[in-house]
C-alpha cells in the first residue's frame, strides 16, 4: 500500500517506486554476478561475483524492507544463485569455458529449445484466456509429435504431416473441451486424463505401426538458410548473426510469427475480445450475446492444434524421429511459461526464451571440466526458476477470473 501512496505523492515524476527499483536492481546484479564469470569477460577473481551478488542481496533486502516482499525475495534468491554460479564459473579454466560456451551457438540452441514451448504455451494461452485450464498440453504435444511423424511418413510430405499432427492435437483437445465445457468435469482432472490417453494412444500406435525398429526415413521440415546475413557489416557481427540465426528451422520462425499473430488476435480483434470476455466474466459475455460454449470450444481446439505444432516441431523438425513419451514434460514447462508470462503473448515468449536458454546452457555447462560432477543438476534450473517465479514473481500473475470454472447456462 505504502508504495502506491509514495508513487502517487511523487506525482508522476517517479513512475517506478524505489522499492521496486531496488528489487529489479537485485535481480540484475544477481545475473551480472554470473555473467561476468562467463565469456567474453571471464573474470577469474572470486571476489567479483561475491561483491556484485552481495550488492544484489542487499538491494533485495532493501526492497523487501520497503514493502516489495515478493520482488525482494526473488532478488535475493537470484543474487544467491548468481554468486553460486559465478563462483563455479570462476573455478573453471578460461579456455575450456570459451570452447564450451559459444554465444552464437547458445542463441541458436535457445531458439530451438524455446520453439516447442512457445507453440504449446501460446496454445495454452488461448485455452486459459477463455477460462479453460489446459493441463493436457503435454498430451496434445505428444499427439502432434506422433501423428506428425505418422502422417508425414504415410504421405511423404512434411506439410501434410504437420496438418495431420495438428488435427490429432485438435481432436484430443476437443475431447478435453467436451468434458470440461459440456460435461463440466473438473478441468484439471480431465487434463490429467488427456495426458494419460495421449501417452497410451501414441505409445500403442507407435508400437503397432513401427514396432521396435523406430520410424526410419521421414520427411523433414526444412531449415531456412539466410546466408546473406554473413555480409552484414561489420564482419564480426555478420558472422555472428549468420551462425546464430542463419540456419534455423522454418518452424522456429513460425513460432515467432505465432506469438505476434496471437497478440493481434487476442488483443486487437473482436474474436480475441470475446475469448477474453468469456474467460473473465462468462455471464456478462453471455448476456451480450456471445456464445460462451462455442467460444470456449473454439479456443480449446485451437490450443490443441497449436500445442501439436510444438510436438510436430520436436519430431519432424528437431530430432527427425519419434520415441515413446518424447515430449518428456515440455508441456508442463510450457504451462509454467504461460504462468510466468502472465497469460500474455510476449510475456510467454520471454518466459519460453528464458527456459530455452536454461535448457541450452545446462548441457554445455556439463562439459566444463570442474562442473562435470554437477552435470545433471543444471537440468533442474528451469524448474527451480519456475518455482521461484510462481512463489514470488515480479508482481503477481493473476489468472483470468473465470479460469477453471465450468459455465452453466441459466
Amino acid at each position: 500500500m505504502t508504495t502506491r501512496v509514495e508513487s502517487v505523492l511523487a506525482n508522476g515524476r517517479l513512475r517506478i517506486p524505489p522499492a521496486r527499483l531496488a528489487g529489479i536492481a537485485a535481480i540484475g546484479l544477481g545475473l551480472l554476478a554470473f555473467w561476468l564469470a562467463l565469456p567474453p569477460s571471464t573474470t577469474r577473481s572470486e571476489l567479483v561475483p561475491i561483491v556484485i551478488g552481495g550488492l544484489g542481496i542487499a538491494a533485495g533486502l532493501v526492497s523487501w524492507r520497503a514493502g516489495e516482499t515478493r520482488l525482494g525475495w526473488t532478488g535475493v534468491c537470484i543474487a544467491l544463485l548468481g554468486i553460486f554460479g559465478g563462483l563455479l564459473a570462476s573455478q573453471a579454466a578460461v579456455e575450456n569455458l570459451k570452447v564450451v560456451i559459444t554465444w552464437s551457438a547458445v542463441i541458436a540452441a535457445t531458439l530451438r529449445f524455446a520453439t516447442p514451448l512457445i507453440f504449446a504455451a501460446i496454445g495454452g494461452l488461448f485455452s486459459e484466456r477463455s477460462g479453460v485450464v489446459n493441463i493436457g498440453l503435454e498430451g496434445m504435444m505428444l499427439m502432434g509429435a506422433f501423428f506428425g511423424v505418422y502422417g508425414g511418413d504415410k504421405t511423404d510430405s512434411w506439410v501434410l504431416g504437420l496438418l495431420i499432427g495438428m488435427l490429432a492435437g485438435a481432436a484430443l483437445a476437443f475431447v478435453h473441451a467436451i468434458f470440461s465445457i459440456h460435461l463440466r468435469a473438473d478441468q484439471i482432472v480431465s487434463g490429467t486424463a488427456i495426458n494419460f490417453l495421449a501417452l497410451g494412444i501414441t505409445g500403442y500406435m507407435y508400437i503397432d505401426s513401427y514396432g521396435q525398429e523406430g520410424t526410419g526415413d521421414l520427411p523433414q521440415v526444412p531449415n531456412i538458410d539466410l546466408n546473406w546475413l554473413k555480409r552484414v557489416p561489420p564482419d564480426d557481427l555478420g558472422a555472428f548473426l549468420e551462425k546464430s540465426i542463419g540456419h534455423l528451422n522454418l518452424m522456429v520462425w513460425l513460432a515467432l510469427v505465432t506469438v505476434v499473430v496471437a497478440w493481434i488476435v487476442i488483443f486487437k480483434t473482436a474474436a480475441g475480445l470475446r475469448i477474453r470476455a468469456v474467460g473473465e466474466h462468462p455471464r456478462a459475455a453471455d448476456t451480450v450475446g456471445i456464445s460462451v460454449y462455442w467460444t470456449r470450444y473454439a479456443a480449446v481446439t485451437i490450443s490443441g492444434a497449436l500445442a501439436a505444432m510444438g510436438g510436430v516441431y520436436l519430431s519432424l523438425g528437431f530430432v527427425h524421429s519419434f520415441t515413446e513419451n518424447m515430449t518428456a514434460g515440455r508441456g508442463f514447462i510450457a504451462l509454467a511459461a504461460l504462468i510466468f508470462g502472465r497469460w500474455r503473448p510476449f510475456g510467454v515468449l520471454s518466459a519460453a526464451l528464458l527456459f530455452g536458454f536454461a535448457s541450452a546452457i545446462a548441457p554445455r555447462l556439463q562439459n566444463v571440466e570442474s562442473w562435470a560432477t554437477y552435470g545433471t543438476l543444471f537440468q533442474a534450473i528451469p524448474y527451480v526458476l519456475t518455482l521461484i517465479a510462481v512463489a514470488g514473481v515480479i508482481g503477481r500473475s493473476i489468472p483470468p477470473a473465470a479460469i477453471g470454472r465450468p459455465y452453466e447456462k441459466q
Partner: protein
Amino acid sequence: MSEREIQAPPPPEAPEEPAPSMAARFALYQRAGGVITPLLTAILAFFVGGLVVLVTTGKNPIETYKAIFDGTGLNWFFPWVRGVERDLAAEDLQQTLLIMSTLILVGIAVAFAFRCGLFNIGGQGQYIAGMIAGVQVGIWMPDLPHVPHMVLASAAGALAGAIWGGIAGILKATVGAHEVISTIMLNWTALWIASYLVGFNGPLQDPNQVFVPVTEAVSASAKLNVWWGDPQLQGLHIGFFVAIAALIVFWVVLNRTTLGYEVRAVGFNAEAARYGGIGVGRNYFLAMAISGAFAGLAGSVDILGWLFRVDLTSVQVSSQIAFIGIAIALLGRNTPVGIFFAALLFGALLNGTSTRNLDPEVFQPELASNLTLIIQGLVVLFVGADLLILYLWRARLKLRRARHPEAVAQE
C-alpha cells in the same frame, strides 16, 4: 492468506455464485453414486480398451484380457487351480501385491490432499525423495539392529516425502501458489536432483561400480522381511501390511481426529472453514506434508522391500507409479476401501501386462502396457465427468422427495 485477499482490486460486480470447489464436488459425487459408478466406469474403460484391441490387431479381446488376468496371479484364489499352475499363480500374485502395496500408498497420497481440496500431482517428487532418503539411511549404520534400522529407514523416506510435499503446501498457504504448478515443478526438480545423486560421479553412486548409475545396496539389517514366497525371488515383503496399515491410518486421521475434521472442512469450503476459525493455510501445509509422507513412504518401502538400490531407471519410472496414484484416488473416490480395490485393479493390470507375464503369442506386452495407459486415461476421464452422476443424484432425490418428502427434509 487466501488468494482473494492478495488480489487487490475486487471485481466491480460481485461474481456469480462461486462454482463449488473440487472437493465439494467430490463429496457430492461420493454420496451420489455408491459403488456402482466406479464399477461402471471401470467396465466402460475396459470395454473401450477391448474395442481398441479388436480394431487394431483383430485379436479376441476376451482372450487378451484372460491372458492378462492369468499373468496377475489372481487365479490363485480359484480352488480348481492346482499343482504347478498354482505355484506359478502364487509367484505372480506376490508380484501383483508387491506393486499394489506401492500403489495403495501413492493413492493415499493423492486422496488425502484431495480431501483438503488440493490436487497433489507431486507424488513423483515425493516418492523420489522417499527413495533417496530410504536408501541413504538403509546404507548408513549397518550395525543397527534389524527392527530399528528398518523402521528408521522407512520413516526417513516418509519424512523426506513430507518435506518435499510440504514445500508445495507452504507455497500454497503463504503466497497462494497453485499446488498443481508447484508440485509439477517439484517433481522435475526431484527427478534431476536424484539423477545427479545416483548418476555417474554422483555422491551416492556405488564406488565399486563406476560404470553403472546405481547406489550401493541397503544393508541387510534394513531390508523388509519377506513373509510370502522366496526372498531370493522377490517374494512379498511386509510392506504390504504397511500399506494396509496406512489405509487404516488414513481413515482414522480423516474421520476420528481434529486434524482430519479440519482438513475435510477446508476441503468442503475453505471460506466457511476460515469463518469457523480453522487455520486454512496451516491445513493446506499439513495436508500436503501428510500426503507427501505417504508417497515418500511408498518410495522407501519399495527400496527396502525389493529394489534395495536406487538406479536411474527407478528414478525415471517413478512418474508412472505416481500418476497411477491419481487414477487410483479418483477411481477409489478417496475412500480407504475404494483405494484398496482400485490399487488392486491397477497393480494387477501393471503386472499382468508386463513383459514377464504376458505371452507375446497372445498379445504383445509392449502394446498391452500402452493399453493399460489408455484404460487408465479413460477411467480418469469418466470419473472426472461427474455431471452424469449429478443428474442421476438429482433424479434420485426428486424420486425420493416424491415418495417421502419428510425424510429428505431431514437430511
